[in-house]
Each structure stands twice: as structure tokens, then as C-alpha cells.
């Protein structure tokens, strides 16, 4: 699947396009198919996201998994600070990055 991601303009938070808006949870990411470029231009112009880009990802049993490790790190947070990730109660979630 093709997924759209970027950082929130105001806060810099990592965000994922859900089909109707933006979410901080990668598992909310929608497959944008061939419409990526169009959505990207529109959302950037509307200032809801900063420097958005299109990535490859895979829908698995456990949710959406970006193809590149960099985007998996972005999706959870720094692997060396489990306390600062999106899911601080569950440090094992970091294993998903590798």
C-alpha cells in the first residue's frame, strides 16, 4: 500500500493521512493508491502538514508497517527512549522497528 506521512506544521509531530484527516497513529494510515500526489499538494497548501511524502507500507495482522526503518522509527519514536515513544507502557513495541 501507499501511505502519506509528514510532520505537523505547528508542532512537528509525525502524522499519517487517514483518508479524511491526519492521525499520529500509523495504524490509522489509509492506502492512497494513485491519489498520493494530489492529496499531498492539497494538504500541504492547507498547512495541515509540513513536507509530506509518500511511502510504501504493508498492512499486516498487527497494523500498518512502513517499508523503510526510518519511517518505522518515526512511527513509534526514538528506540533509545521508550518513555518518549507513543506507547511508553509497552517498550516491546520497539522490537517492531527492526
Amino acid at each position, binding site marked *: 500500500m501507499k501511505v502519506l506521512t509528514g*510532520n505537523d506544521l505547528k508542532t512537528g*509531530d509525525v502524522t499519517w493521512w487517514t483518508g479524511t484527516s491526519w492521525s499520529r497513529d500509523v495504524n490509522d494510515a489509509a492506502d492512497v493508491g494513485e491519489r498520493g500526489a494530489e492529496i499531498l499538494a492539497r494538504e500541504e497548501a492547507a*498547512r495541515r502538514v509540513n513536507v509530506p511524502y509518500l511511502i510504501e507500507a504493508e498492512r499486516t495482522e498487527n497494523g500498518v508497517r512502513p517499508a523503510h*526503518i526510518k519511517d518505522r522509527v518515526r512511527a513509534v519514536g526514538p*528506540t533509545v527512549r521508550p518513555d518518549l515513544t507513543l506507547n511508553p507502557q509497552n517498550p516491546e513495541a520497539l522490537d517492531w522497528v527492526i
Partner: protein
Amino acid sequence: MYKYDNYDQQMVDARVEEFRDQARRRLEGKLTEDQFKPLRLMNGLYLQLHAYMLRVAIPYGTLNGEQMTALANIADKYDRGYGHFTTRQNLQYNWIKLEDAADILADLAKVEMHAIQTSGNCIRNISSDHFAGAAQDELVDPRPYAELLRQWSSFHPEFTYLPRKFKICVIASEKDRAAMRLHDIGIQIVQQDGEIGARFFVGGGMGRTPMIAPMIRDFVPLDQLITYAEACLRVYNRYGRRDNKYKARIKILVHELGKDEYTRQVEEEFAHMLDQGVEPPREELERLKPFFADPTFEDGAKTVDRSDPDFALWVDRNTHRHKNDAYVSAVISLKPVAGIPGDATGDQMRVMANLAQQYSFDELRIMHTQNVVLPHVKIADLHALWTQLDAADLGAPNMDTIEDMIACPGLDYCALANARSIPLAQRISEKFDASGKTEKLGELKLKISGCINACGHHHAGHIGILGVDKKGVENYQLSLGGSEAEDVSLAKITGPGFTEDGVIEAVETVTDVYLAQKQGEERFLDTYRRIGMAPFKEALYD
């Protein structure tokens, strides 16, 4: 320490308001990202993996307790309670919001700090010896010269759009504690026939094409220092490779022209500029010197009570000889076992600020090895200091050991990274600490970068590790034999790369080769230089 005059303060305050307006216009949609990016970068604001990142300049690594406290307060108020001290003697915050950035810059300006010229193709923060003004072996304090260069290079209109970033370093001892020859310009303050002057090394750097700067002039009189620096930059500004980002640093120009031809062009430019009034009046340098005058040192004990072995070890490892023999410079390690190199929490920054005020004439220094120095500590106060450091998890006795490694943020934070650096640093430190081998290895400088940009100085590591991307999987290249010190050299790659587990094993292997082959007092680097790469390669790959 240097104190801002009205001009300095006005410039910094005006810049904050200018940026506030730019950020507002970006948030209102009046500026696109393409328009805004160069403006935010001029104020040290990057976009990284998880948020915006702000890089704060700490001129030649010197700051006082009030400034350190302000950095701590920003970490707590606007970031997530910590900051990262870097090899550029700066501080980076990892979790900044664009909507807060102008307020942060305003808070910095209140304590004479800013983020100007910490990014972009301009002259960056000047680096220097972290023991400046304290070291027993220095000729003079290099910081007045660094400050003169800072003033000259701040908002210098001719050098605001250079072909690429530009880094200058000033030292004043034969020992090089600041990687001077790995800078675009390295200046060593020297004495010739009783006169003080500057020796110029130009065209060093790390990144994808590491180079050691050759000396191009062994003595520039002090009343021509700025003119000579300006001539060096002018030749570069004119002929640097603007067509290719990867060839745009001055090291490539000096290398391609050859040192002699580059020098000839600089000398020609210099001769032409000499009577044009480029040089600030000599009184300006004299005006700066008193800012860096010695504090009032007192007599006191010259030795410590060594009955506590933990304290004695810390004193042996983490203190440096001071020009006054009742004092030392004390190194505060930001490398606790399995910690994140260079990270300090807001609370730790406040502890360091208070200790500086209490024990070091209100002065701190940031080292390029991502540690902090209290430059002037009375030997009689050392035990009290160490006790408080230890209580704040700041007392690791590991300066210049394998546990005192440099690691860049890598793929945990950095958008340019290929691989993570910090987890390697943590695992290596944990492993060597647990096996007790650190002690046996003595001085061993390990440096890790997450990509070829070499922010973690891997080219200059006795052991260097570079993260690469191998078909989407993290992989690590090992190199040996580098040094950033006066015996400067560039490390050589051992051979094919390793997985994360593999490279940690490989570090163990090369240290075993060293211990087996070591003669007398040899350090790892000395043994490597004597026996060469072959025995290490054999142990690694056979």
C-alpha cells in the same frame, strides 16, 4: 567571560523579532516551506524525524551558570526535559514546536545566547580548546581570538552565502584538544621571536571526503589575523564548487588546486587587502582580553586524600592539569554506563550550573567529546564536587576510555541517518564496563556516526564506526587508526561491514588484538600504528 555590549544585544533581540514575524507568516500560510526553510535554518531550526530540532550556539563552548540554567529551563518548558550536547560544542533540542520557537529564542536572548549561524552555508560557531584559560600547557588563552573571529563572522555580509558551511577552530597549545586540523580553518596561536601570532591550517574536514588541513602559513601577525582569514574565505567564496554540494567544502578546493596554488591565491588576495582597512583596530583585541582574565585564584591543597578508591579513580581519569597548581579542570562525564552520549536532563543541567557557581568561578565548557568541563576547581573542593556529581549520575570516571565514546543522534533522531548510533554506544559501554576491560584498555577513543556526514567524528576515532544502509537494513563499517589530536590521522576501513551484533563483537575482537600485541605503555592507537591493519583484519575476517 565575554559580556554582550549594546550592539550584540540589539542584534540578537532584533533577530528574535524578525524570526517571530517569519514564523507567524509561515503559520498563517503567507510563506511556503520553500520560502521559510532557509529562514528557519538561519536560526538553527531544523525539521528532524520526530519534531523540529533547535541547535543553540555556545561560542567556543564557554558558558556560565545562568546560561546553563536557562538551557535547563528551556528543556523542561518547551522540550521533553533534556538536551543533547554535540561535537560542535553546541546544544540540540529534539522536540521543538514551531509555534514555540520564537519564544525560545527570546528566552535565550535574555541570557546572551542565540541560534544564529548554527546552520546554513555560513561561518558556524567557532570551536576551541575546552580547557582554554585553564590548561597548564597553553601559550595564551585562545578565547579572545575566538571572540574576535566570532564578532567578525557574525552577520558578515560577504560570507552569508558561502558555497557550503564553514567551521573555524582556534587553539593555543601544541596539544590539540579541539580537532583543530579537521576544521575548514584551524588556527593555532603561536609565538615566534617573542611575538604572538597565528598559524593557519586550511581545508580540513570530515564528512564524505575526510581531509587533514595542511598548514598554509606558519605565522600571521596578530594585527593581520582577520585580514588573513578574510583572504582565505574570499578565495573559497569565489572558487568553491557551488555546482556540486558534495564538492563544495573548502577542503575540496584546497585539494583540487593543491595546497601551494591555494596558498598563492590567498597570499595574493591578502597582499591586495592589507591596506583596505579590513582589520579591526588592535585595541579591539585588547578590549576583549580582560573579559577572559584569570579569576582570583587562591592558595590551597595541591593533592587529594586518596583513601576512597572510587574518588581517586575519578580524580585520575577526569581531571586535567591547571596552570595554577592548587586547581584542576574537572570533566563531568555525560557518558554514564549504557547512557545516551551527550544527553543531559534539565535537572542535570541545573546541577552542573549550580556546581559551576559554587566551585568554578561560574564557568562551564562544552567539550567536543560531548562532556562538560568545570575549568577552575580548587583541588581542596574536589571531593565535595565529586560527591554531588555522583549523586546526580554525573560522576562516571571514564574520560578518554572506550566508554567515553562520541555518538551522533543517528537514526533515532536524525533525518539523514542510515543507521542508529546510540544503541551501539549503549551496548558497547555496558559490555566493556561489565567485563572490566575498560580499565585495561586505557585511552581508547571510539566514535560513531549514523551516516557519512560524520557528525560523530568516526574518521578520527582510534576505532570508528559508520552506519550504512544495506538494502534497508542497518549495517556498520569499522575503521581503525584515526586521531583528532596533535597526532592527527584518518581511520582506515577494516573491510566488509557488520550487523549490529557483529560490529559489537568486532570491537571486542580488535581490542583483544591490541591487548595481545601491546608493548609497554602503548595505547591502542600506538599499537595499531606499529603493527598495522593486517593482524586486526586477520582476527576479524578469518
